[in-house]
């Protein structure tokens, strides 16, 4: 037994098999349970070390060979696998109440397997191709049958596909820079191409126009899953570049470019979110700001950067999960999700409305919620470096907060004398309620997941050391 077989090939095979299952409940339970088991296995079973249970000994080999190259999961990857599959399980369990299980479970599991393969592949540069394969699988996930592809889906496909050639080519150029570090022109050319590649993949300013478009076109739960899973793995892939190339890691200019890009995303995403009148578009702009937070975290000094980026993963996923689920439930009731149409819905869907507002506030870094501790740490780190960056960070956060308050005002704005008329299903209420409890737990006890997060920086040989 080898680690890539267990955490890549097995879920991919199950995903292919699950395409044959039509019962949504069975799909949800099977997919969610498998993801949960894989997460638990990553927590319990050490990679490349013998696990003794009585007379029985189990050792998971770290690598397999494919066409002369390797897929390798080192022991330090165990924590990432546990977090990643644990969060995927949460999304799958939520898929049943949002009615997306038949697409999300098989295709989502396949995408998860491909993205884990992108972390495991050696040379690491080939991850760009595996991420592109995941993007291609995301298209049928986004676009259900009987729906005409809109401009958002087309732009998603174009921008994400353009990222791959840039990154592969930049990878080749970067090797040249490593061989001749004095060639400044080559360094500038290669980092520009690399930056463009990641700008396409991460939907960095100004390549993010497709995000709000998609939020109006497709299922918001599926979109939320992709908004979490693709940027998270792409950022880890990007950190691989920093780990591999010392000149990139130590370059002050590169760090400044990351900070500028991140700040642009936080400010434009935050302010745009504040002025939106469509709840889906608000989420899309908040996601843009979230990616900006990750870039800003990466611009911090290396020892802080790695931890900050990893600390963002769980709050981001949980907030997006609650947000996307709440929006999907509201969309079942009213469509489109414009302010003029959703007015007063808190009277009929109080739990869903609460989930929506609290998830939005969490992304904005509101105290007691999951996003608060890391936003505070990030703000402090940025303030030490530059007060002007910290100021603009605050402007972005304020934009997100204003967006949340506007949403709250609209949702409770029922006509005078309107009474409470609960129309929520208990299943979705429980799921959203559990997610909200999770947001509070992570906000009040940010050390809850420290036991897995603490090992994540070991994934990298040089970065953060």
């Amino acid at each position, binding site marked *: 037994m080898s680690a890539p077989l267990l955490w890549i090939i097995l879920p991919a095979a199950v995903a292919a098999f699950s395409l044959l299952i039509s019962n949504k409940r069975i799909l949800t339970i099977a997919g969610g349970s498998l993801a949960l088991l894989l997460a638990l296995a990553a927590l319990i079973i050490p990679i490349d070390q013998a696990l003794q249970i009585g007379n029985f000994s189990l050792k998971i080999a770290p690598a397999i060979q494919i066409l002369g190259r390797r897929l390798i999961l080192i022991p330090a990857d165990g924590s990432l696998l546990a977090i990643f599959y644990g969060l995927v399980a949460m999304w799958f369990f939520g898929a049943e109440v949002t009615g997306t299980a038949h697409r999300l479970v098989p295709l989502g599991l396949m995408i998860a397997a491909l993205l884990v393969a992108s972390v495991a592949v050696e040379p690491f540069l080939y991850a760009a*191709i595996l991420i592109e394969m995941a993007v291609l699988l995301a298209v049928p996930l986004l676009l259900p049958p009987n729906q005409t592809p809109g401009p958002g889906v087309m732009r998603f496909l174009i921008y994400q596909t353009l990222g791959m050639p840039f990154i*592969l080519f930049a990878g080749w150029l970067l090797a040249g820079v490593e061989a001749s570090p004095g060639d400044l022109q080559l360094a500038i050319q290669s980092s520009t191409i690399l930056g463009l590649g990641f700008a396409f993949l991460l939907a960095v300013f100004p390549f993010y126009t497709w995000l709000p478009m998609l939020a109006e076109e497709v299922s918001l739960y599926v979109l939320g899953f992709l908004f979490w899973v693709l940027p998270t793995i792409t950022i880890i892939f990007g950190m691989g570049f920093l780990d591999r190339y010392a000149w990139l890691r130590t370059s002050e200019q590169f760090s400044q470019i990351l900070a500028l890009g991140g700040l642009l995303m936080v400010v434009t995403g935050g302010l745009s979110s504040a002025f939106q009148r469509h709840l889906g578009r608000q989420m899309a702009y908040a996601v843009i700001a979230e990616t900006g937070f990750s870039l800003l975290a990466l611009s911090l000094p290396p020892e802080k950067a790695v931890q900050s980026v990893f600390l963002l993963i769980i709050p981001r996923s949980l907030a997006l999960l609650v947000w996307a689920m709440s929006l999907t439930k509201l969309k079942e009731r009213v469509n489109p999700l414009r302010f003029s149409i959703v007015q007063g819905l808190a009277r009929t869907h109080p739990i869903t409305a609460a989930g929506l507002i609290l998830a939005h506030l969490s992304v904005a870094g509101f105290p007691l919620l999951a996003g608060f501790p890391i936003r505070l740490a990030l703000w402090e780190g940025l303030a030490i470096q530059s007060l002007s960056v910290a100021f603009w960070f605050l402007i972005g956060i304020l934009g997100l907060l204003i967006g949340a308050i506007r949403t709250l005002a609209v949702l409770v704005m029922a006509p005078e004398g309107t009474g409470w008329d609960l129309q929520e299903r208990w299943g979705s209420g429980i799921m959203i309620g559990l997610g909200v409890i999770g947001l509070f737990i992570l906000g009040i006890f940010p050390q809850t997941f420290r036991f897995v997060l603490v090992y994540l920086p070991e994934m990298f040989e040089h970065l953060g050391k």
Partner: protein
Amino acid sequence: MTIIAWVTVGFVLVTSAGLLVSRDWRLELGLLGLQYVGVFWLTNQHWPISMAAIKLVTGWMAIAALGMTRLNLIEEDEDREKFWPQGRLFRLFAAGIVTVIVTTAAPRVEEIIPGIGLPVISGSLVLLGLGMLHLGMTAQPFRVILGLLTILSGFETLYAALESSVLVAAMLSVVNLGLALVGAYLLTARTLEPEESA
């Protein structure tokens, strides 16, 4: 050998410009098929023939997938695009500008990555440039996929000179085929039966 390579560059210029100008999907797929022959020849400058043939076979398989799908669609769905420049002369003019840019840029690219050869770089840049132009002029799924396949062909022609891994060749083939299948799905999605909500 160099003369044949330059002829191939001219050949891919004609096919990719033809893709931009043509409005008949059959002709477009035919041109794309010929374009893959050019890509095969340029790739063959750095890869053995058996490896380079992967590009040709994959490309033709992608065309077959798109062609079979397009064949089953109603003709009236064609040319519904209203907002992009329609004139053939305009498109040819734009292709001419891209060709001029490629002519000036190719020697500079050769300075950055020496040893590949000017014909391969020129052919690759022509495909990349005209593919980008194609994407900039359309929002129709079929043509977007043709544009993306053209861009990938250009990139693969250049990348083949830098990377000869069998795994990369295989994965890029999967991406090309995947793109064609996604294109086929995008073309047919609205005609498919909706999923049962139970």
